[in-house]
């Protein structure tokens, strides 16, 4: 195991230090608590002690300035047992180090593995705007494995999407951050001890390992391990799962159709095994099976997306002055208009005429008239947007996502409908890009499709307001002194009272109502 030594917190108000001098060189064997390095801050000089015994791997050179918490060096503890005499002898050091790097792989005697001695440290890449941390969802390679340049070695999950981490060099992998660990952008993930692949193949014991590297995880793997049958291959491709991620149950680890059907992406695997375990437990018990299984529990790790949703929603509740205003809309005019033109519309534009385009248009018009509703707070300033990027809440298997219709105010009804279909399809298939979900100046959410009568939606931060649509129910209403039955939808507008006053929010909603109850206004802009 290798220990990462980081810049210690050396004192209040000191947030960076410079490496004044290394007292040990790269590859040296160091004893625990031995002084290995001198650090300088703008106030004083410190000594850095080894946190463990082992072989030193220097990560930061002399003269480099590092922030507190940054990686300085690593100490490979396995050096301890394997090489007691190797300390400080440059000759012995080289071979000692090689042995230690792959302690488990006894096949690898490094007969011809020409390691260049260069070690590349890989850190979490900047994966997108506004993403500050990621989680290692799975390692596709094991510690000590030989990896090829550009080979996918790990999957990284952010709260918005999943990324693949590819090797920055060919060589032996040493994992620094384990699966499930959440890291900030720029944090070290792993390192690769650069080595030549060709020479590695020459040594007999190694080549077998190398061949199976493509798919194998077990020891007695063959060339066919991880080979997916034709049907299995198709299923995996459709699920977007690489055969490398699946453990085949067929002969020699071949992936069968059943393996592919039950395969799931990354961390769900672990949670799968749990319910199974619960079942075996209950079958052992003497209590009636029925009642026992009624009380079974299931624990599932929260996905990054779910965690983000949770964190955001709570922070919006805490950090804004949110409240909700309601109104009701007589949907009859819109429904009549829709009934009348839906076939013509469909023939002409090849997309159905839904309610969303009416609401989006009405909202855009109202936003134009009440700019505060379309604004957002940025510290001490209010940012007004003169365009309407309308976020649409879409429910998916993974959770709620809010893709954005850009410049909705400029789009025609058919363009809005098409954009909604496009984004919703992508959302369902988990194919939305971060760009397609970023930005947005106002959100529309439709709980009505699930049957909601009334709700108080939570603002989609940093936006300042959200419109909630609900189900359409025939209700008795009074028109011209008479009770008549009309299809009514309740509307809710949740808004941030910090920048939107009651007068604006209520007027905004009334405006939306009036536009929907008389859609001709949408055309005339009155």
């Amino acid at each position: 195991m290798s220990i990462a030594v980081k810049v210690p917190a050396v004192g209040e108000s000191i947030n960076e230090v410079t490496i004044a001098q290394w007292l040990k060189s790269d590859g040296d064997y160091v004893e625990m608590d031995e002084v290995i390095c001198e650090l300088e801050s703008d106030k004083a000089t410190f000594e850095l002690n080894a946190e463990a015994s082992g072989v030193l791997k220097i990560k930061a050179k002399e003269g480099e300035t590092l922030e507190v918490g940054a990686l300085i060096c690593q100490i490979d503890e396995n050096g301890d047992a394997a090489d007691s005499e190797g300390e400080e002898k440059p000759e012995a050091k080289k071979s000692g180090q090689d042995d230690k790097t792959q302690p488990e792989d006894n096949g690898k005697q490094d007969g011809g593995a020409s390691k260049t001695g260069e070690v590349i440290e890989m850190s979490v890449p900047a994966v997108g705007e506004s993403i500050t941390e990621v989680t290692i969802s799975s390692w596709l390679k094991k510690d000590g494995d030989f990896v090829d340049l550009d080979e996918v070695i790990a999957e990284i999950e952010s709260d918005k999407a999943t990324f693949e981490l590819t090797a920055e060099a060919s060589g032996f992998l040493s994992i620094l951050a384990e699966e499930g660990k959440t890291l900030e952008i720029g944090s070290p993930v792993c390192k690769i001890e650069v080595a030549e692949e060709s020479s590695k193949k020459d040594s007999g014991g190694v080549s077998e390992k190398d061949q199976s590297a493509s798919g194998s995880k077990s020891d007695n793997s063959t060339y066919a391990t991880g080979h997916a049958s034709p049907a299995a291959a198709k299923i995996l491709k459709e699920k977007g799962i690489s055969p490398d991620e699946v453990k085949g149950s067929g002969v020699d680890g071949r992936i069968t159709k059943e393996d592919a059907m039950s395969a799931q992406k990354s961390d769900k695997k672990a949670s799968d095994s749990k319910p199974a375990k619960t079942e075996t437990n209950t079958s052992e018990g003497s209590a009636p099976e029925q009642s026992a299984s009624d009380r079974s529990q299931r624990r599932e790790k929260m996905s990054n997306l779910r965690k983000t949703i949770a964190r955001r929603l709570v922070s919006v509740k805490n950090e804004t002055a949110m409240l909700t205003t309601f109104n009701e809309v007589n949907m009859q005019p819109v429904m009549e208009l829709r009934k009348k033109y839906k076939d013509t519309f469909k023939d002409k534009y090849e997309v159905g005429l839904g309610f969303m385009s009416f609401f989006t248009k009405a909202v855009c018009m109202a936003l134009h008239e009440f700019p505060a509703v379309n604004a957002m707070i940025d510290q001490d300033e209010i940012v007004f947007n003169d365009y309407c990027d309308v976020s649409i809440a879409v429910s998916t298997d993974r959770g709620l996502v809010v893709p954005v219709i850009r410049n909705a105010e400029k789009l025609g009804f058919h363009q809005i409908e098409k954009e909604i279909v496009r984004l919703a399809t992508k959302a369902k298939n988990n194919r939305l890009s971060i760009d397609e979900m970023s930005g947005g100046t106002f959100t529309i959410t439709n709980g009505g499709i699930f049957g909601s009568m009334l709700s108080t939606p939570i603002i989609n931060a940093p936006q300042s307001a959200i419109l909630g649509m609900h189900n359409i129910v025939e209700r008795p209403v009074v028109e011209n002194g008479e009770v008549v039955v009309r299809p009514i939808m309740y509307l809710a507008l949740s808004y941030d009272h910090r920048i939107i006053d009651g007068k604006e929010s209520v007027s905004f909603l009334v405006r939306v109502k009036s536009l929907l109850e008389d859609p001709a206004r949408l055309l005339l802009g009155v």
Partner: protein
Amino acid sequence: MKYDVVVIGSGPGGYVAAIRCAQLGLKTAIVEKYPVLGGTCLNVGCIPSKALLDSSEHFHNAQNHFKEHGINLSKLSVDIKQMIERKRGVVKQTVDGVQYLMKKNKIDVHTGLGSFKDKHTLVIKGGKEEKTIESDKFIIATGSKPSDLPFAKPDKERIITSTEALELVEVPKHLIIIGAGYIGMELGSVYGRLGSKVTVVEFMDRITPGMDKTMSKELQKVLKKLGFDFNLKHKVTGVERKGDEVVVTAEDDKGEKKEFKGNYCLLSIGRKPYTEGLNLEAAGLSTDERGKIEVDDNLKTKVDNIYAIGDVVRGAMLAHKAEEEGIFVAETMAGQKPHINYKLIPGVIYTWPEVASVGYTEEELKEDGRKYKSGSFPFKASGRARASMDTDGLVKVLADKETDEILGVHIIGPRAADMIAEAVVAMEFRASAEDVARMSHAHPTFTESIKEACLAATENRALHI
């Protein structure tokens, strides 16, 4: 009329694609130029040639082998008219079957020459009335036609292509075949068995180039026994009809001029993609210098909503390859992610014995520098083959030298075309030679020879030789 998918061409690629599209819930139509469905394969290719091959093989057996079986016949003769008639019956049944399948799957059949107006519109001419249909997507599956030589245009009477060879009214006295590919060898077999003298003129140094060399050699040996006269490394320079005679002139590799006189000449030098009348330009498409439509890995052309499959695109011109591509495209359109392993599409020649082959040939492995081992088993050593007097041929298995994974299987022998399926299954699952060698094969069967060849490839431990 507006469809989700319109398939142009109703050969095995086209009609299978249409069925799969319909199964996946797409509103589908198929457009066919000819009044009958089925394309080349059903009408003038695979099916009718097999009908004639079987008829002629029966005659050949009756003439040459029955006596040894203890069956004596007298006044044995060939009724070519009846043979052709029976063949027509087989074709009709098969074609009607496709018609039924279209109906069953609610696929609209439009008869006439489909011609693009734009990338979403197809005009159908030559039917009862000119029609225009629209479709979201198109699959071009218009297949291929026999190629000809610049100086040898078929007159369709004496200088013929495979199409006419399936409709002859007499057994040729002397049939000259230009091109020793699978079509020439199959049709040559038909008439050779019925008594024609067969002369083959081929430019390459071997017959059925592209097949494993052992197969070519064995097949040539077998066909020589049937009376074929092979003239390899001969470049044909002229084909001329003189009355009821056809004179073929050629030059051998030493530049010596030769003349072959026969009463029929079959041009079987290959096939070329057929896109005539499609008006591809109107859809924004074109063909490459060989007449093929270019497609990407998903068989999509450069126009987004148009796909192409089968003989009009790259790859082997085989009915089953076109079928796989038809299914691939239909499923791709439906958002699925199918896959075709082109290396595992078997190739077959329906001579007797048949030749069938899948995976790498020995020549390819040598060229790739791959370390391999080879195991063979002759049908002479097979009890089943001796019982049926089908002792010509052998099975050859090529396997990776280190991993024992099967890399190629080449069979020349009885029912090789059917037997090759075992090799395809094994190779799709990346079986080793020993895997197959350890699977029970019913006794006595021809397939035991595959097992024996696998044993031979594993550790040279075939049992019956």
